[in-house]
């Protein structure tokens, strides 16, 4: 199975080609094309992942793609535990979400185009997962960005959607350019872009500043793609896209690719403690900030978007702390429960045609499937044992605890608390209580939508178990097995541990349950202290509701000056650069005019004198010009005769 791994992304690509060219004729069949293509990828990818898990081996093969001087870039696939994990996540979630979309997008006029884009995305994402070098990785990375752009702006008639797509692409592009430069730096420093040889080449080159720079620049890619501070602003806006897209791209898979990038480059990052500290800093900051904003968001998808940013920050922090397994593990569990949350939100939106949680309430009875799966996912993200989120979050907290960095540990706990709070604020406002806007007539979604919800719910419950002590931390052994064999673990925290740290577990559970409890107090009971909180902590509340003013600050500091600069330069171009050219032109004309004047009045004065004389002479002489041909002939002939006479005479 593994030797055909390169076919995994090919099926969705075929799906894309069929849908983009023949989608018009396929109509609803377009969904089948996409779903079948990703099922085919599942059929290839899952056995391959299983093979890796069973044997603990790495499978890879590559073919030459481009020769650059003495070094060669090759394209190939690499199936190691990391890739297998991602394959497991992407193929399953991708397929489920496409099945869900067939119901969700049912009435859309551009139905086939939607599935074409999703298939292209699947193809790019799967390529990225199994890519064996940075070049191929970057290419699929960018194509994913393109799909994200196209799908965010899928309903482009809405100005907000069109703008959100633009913003997403441009913001991530900034990070991507950093990533690109990072690749260049790495290639210049080591002459190698293959993941398999990354470790050895980093060792060979030693911890040079150039490599540290490469690591930092590559991290820029993560910052852009995984919506880390300060490039996180695009992700909340990206919620303008159809909800399945938010689930697939902006929650479960694509945004996690940034984390995957760090995990892939772990050998490079872990060689530089200072870079790792930057990673931790960014991760924690992002996680905290996003959680803070999520506290006050009222749009159901925006809450989830900020939650995603926050969780991604969590993963990045974990990797920065040196725990490859914790970060990857959380990536996997998060993909399941966050996809579930988004699909649930999509179901709610589908049923109510509203996104504002202040209008909802009491949906538990109207939409039981949606509600229960949503609650399961919320429990998972809040870190309630024994759901998946608990195990992964616990590992991250443990890594922080082991690193000895108490501030980070404390912050992560606070974030866990906030996460539980805002998630259950969402749950309570949406599903409990009574319906607040009576114009809404909620109804449960069709089976194509609820089916995937339950499957994902099952996943959200179960995928944490491989990492739990019940299975002897199988996952962490698996990840650490071949990839980092022989690597020195920085803080030792990533190393395999077989005992539970009950203090950490206690803190984690307390934070989760505390958050849920507080939310229940605020939003379930008749007592409603939220207004009081709002008033008392008004500055903080304002800060949160305005998303820390990021969009405004960027607009004033970056976007507008850039546009203005463009306009100024254009004016400069027209007035100065082109003006110079035109001035040269007019200058020439002017000076010729001056010369013309001199010519006319001085030089010509003399000439005119001559002219007058000439005129007088010619007035008489011109009489010869009778206009009669024969007169001319006569004169000519006489002249010839005379010439002959003078010539012959001597």
């Amino acid at each position, binding site marked *: 199975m593994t030797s055909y791994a390169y076919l995994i992304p090919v099926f969705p690509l075929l799906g894309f080609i069929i849908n983009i060219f023949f989608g018009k004729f396929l109509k609803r069949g377009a969904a089948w094309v996409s779903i079948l293509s990703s099922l085919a990828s599942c059929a290839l990818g899952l056995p391959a992942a299983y093979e890796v898990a069973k044997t603990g081996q790495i499978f890879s093969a590559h073919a030459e793609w481009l020769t650059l001087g003495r070094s060669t870039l090759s394209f190939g696939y690499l199936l190691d535990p990391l890739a297998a994990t991602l394959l497991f996540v992407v193929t399953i979630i991708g397929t489920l979400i496409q099945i869900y979309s067939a119901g969700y997008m049912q009435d859309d006029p551009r139905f086939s185009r939607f599935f074409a884009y999703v298939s292209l995305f699947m193809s790019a994402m799967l390529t990225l997962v199994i890519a064996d070098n940075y070049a191929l990785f970057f290419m699929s990375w960018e194509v994913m960005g393109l799909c994200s752009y196209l799908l965010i702006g899928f309903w482009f008639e809405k100005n907000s959607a069109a703008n959100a797509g633009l913003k997403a692409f441009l913001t991530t592009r900034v990070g991507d350019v950093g990533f690109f430069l990072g690749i260049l730096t790495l290639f210049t420093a080591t002459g190698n872009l293959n993941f398999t040889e990354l470790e050895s080449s980093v060792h060979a080159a030693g911890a040079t500043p150039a490599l540290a720079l490469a690591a930092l620049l590559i991290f820029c890619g993560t910052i852009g793609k995984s919506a880390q501070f300060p490039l996180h602003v695009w992700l909340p806006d990206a919620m303008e896209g159809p909800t399945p897209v938010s689930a697939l791209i902006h929650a479960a898979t694509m945004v996690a690719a940034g984390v995957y990038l760090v995990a892939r480059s772990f050998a490079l990052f872990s060689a530089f403690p200072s870079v790792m500290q930057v990673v931790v800093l960014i991760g924690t900051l992002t996680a905290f900030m996003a959680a803070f904003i999520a506290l006050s968001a009222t749009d159901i998808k925006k809450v989830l978007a900020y939650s995603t940013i926050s969780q991604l920050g969590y993963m990045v922090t974990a990797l920065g702390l040196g725990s490859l397994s914790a970060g990857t593990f959380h990536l996997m569990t998060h993909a399941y429960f966050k996809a579930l949350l988004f699909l649930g939100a999509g179901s709610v939106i589908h049923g109510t045609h509203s996104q504002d949680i202040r209008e909802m309430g009491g949906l538990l009875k109207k939409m039981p499937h949606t509600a229960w799966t949503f609650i399961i996912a919320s429990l998972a993200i809040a870190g309630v044992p024994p759901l998946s989120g608990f195990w992964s979050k616990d590992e991250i907290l443990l890594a922080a605890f082991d690193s000895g960095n108490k501030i980070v540990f404390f912050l992560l706990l606070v974030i866990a608390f906030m996460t539980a709070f805002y998630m259950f604020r969402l749950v309570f406002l949406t599903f409990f209580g009574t319906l607040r806007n009576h114009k809404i007539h909620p109804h449960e979604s069709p089976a194509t939508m609820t089916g995937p919800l339950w499957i994902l719910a099952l996943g959200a419950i179960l995928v944490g178990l491989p990492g739990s002590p019940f299975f002897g931390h199988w996952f962490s052994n698996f990840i650490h097995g071949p990839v980092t064999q022989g690597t020195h673990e920085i803080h030792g925290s990533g190393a395999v541990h077989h005992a539970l740290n009950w203090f950490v577990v206690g803190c984690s559970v307390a934070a989760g349950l505390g958050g849920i409890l507080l939310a229940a107090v605020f939003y379930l009971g008749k007592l409603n202290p939220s207004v009081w909180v709002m008033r008392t902590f008004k500055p903080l509340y304002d800060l949160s509701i305005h998303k820390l003013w990021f969009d405004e600050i960027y607009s004033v500091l970056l976007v507008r000056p850039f546009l203005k600069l463009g306009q100024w330069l254009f004016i400069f171009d027209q007035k100065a650069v082109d003006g110079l050219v035109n001035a040269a032109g007019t200058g020439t004309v002017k000076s010729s005019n001056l010369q013309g004047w001199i010519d006319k009045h001085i030089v010509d004065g003399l000439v005119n004198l001559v002219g007058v004389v000439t005129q007088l002479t010619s007035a008489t002489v011109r009489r010869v010009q009778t206009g009669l041909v*024969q*007169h001319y002939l*006569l004169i000519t*002939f*006489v002249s010839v*005769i005379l010439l*002959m*006479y003078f010539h*012959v005479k001597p």
Partner: protein
Amino acid sequence: MTHLYDIVKFGIYALMAFSVLAAILAVTVRNLFHAALCFAAVLIGIAGVFLSLHADFLAMVQILIYVGAVMTLVIFAIMLTERFGDNSSPQNNSLTLAAFGLAIVSLIAFSTISVKTRWPIQENAGALHLSVGELAYALLNTYVLPFEVISVLLITTLIGAVIIAKKDRVS
């Protein structure tokens, strides 16, 4: 033989005189059509003179092209511009006297030159016979380039004449 020889000689001179006479008529006759006919007579006379110079082929060409083609053209042109063919207004302009004087003077001058100059006469002058084959050989070997140029000229003339003479579509 002498007799025959003299007769031929006399005939040639007569032909020359005839040609000159016809030429004078061709440029003085009032009716243009008659003038054209006189000109045709001149051409035939010259063809005879060519014969006397053993230029048989040239004489044929002279008659075919000049008398056959060019004269037809001229006569057509005269007919097409009928109004001026034989009207009563004078056919000569005010230059007649000056032209006549000039003609006499130049005739004398040229004739003097012709007579006074010592021409490098060849030994076998007047007896050179040239077959048409030799002529063709010279034309298509030594003079092939001018020959081709002439053909291009004729084509150009053909097209040019058609374009100049055709009715202008715009007006």
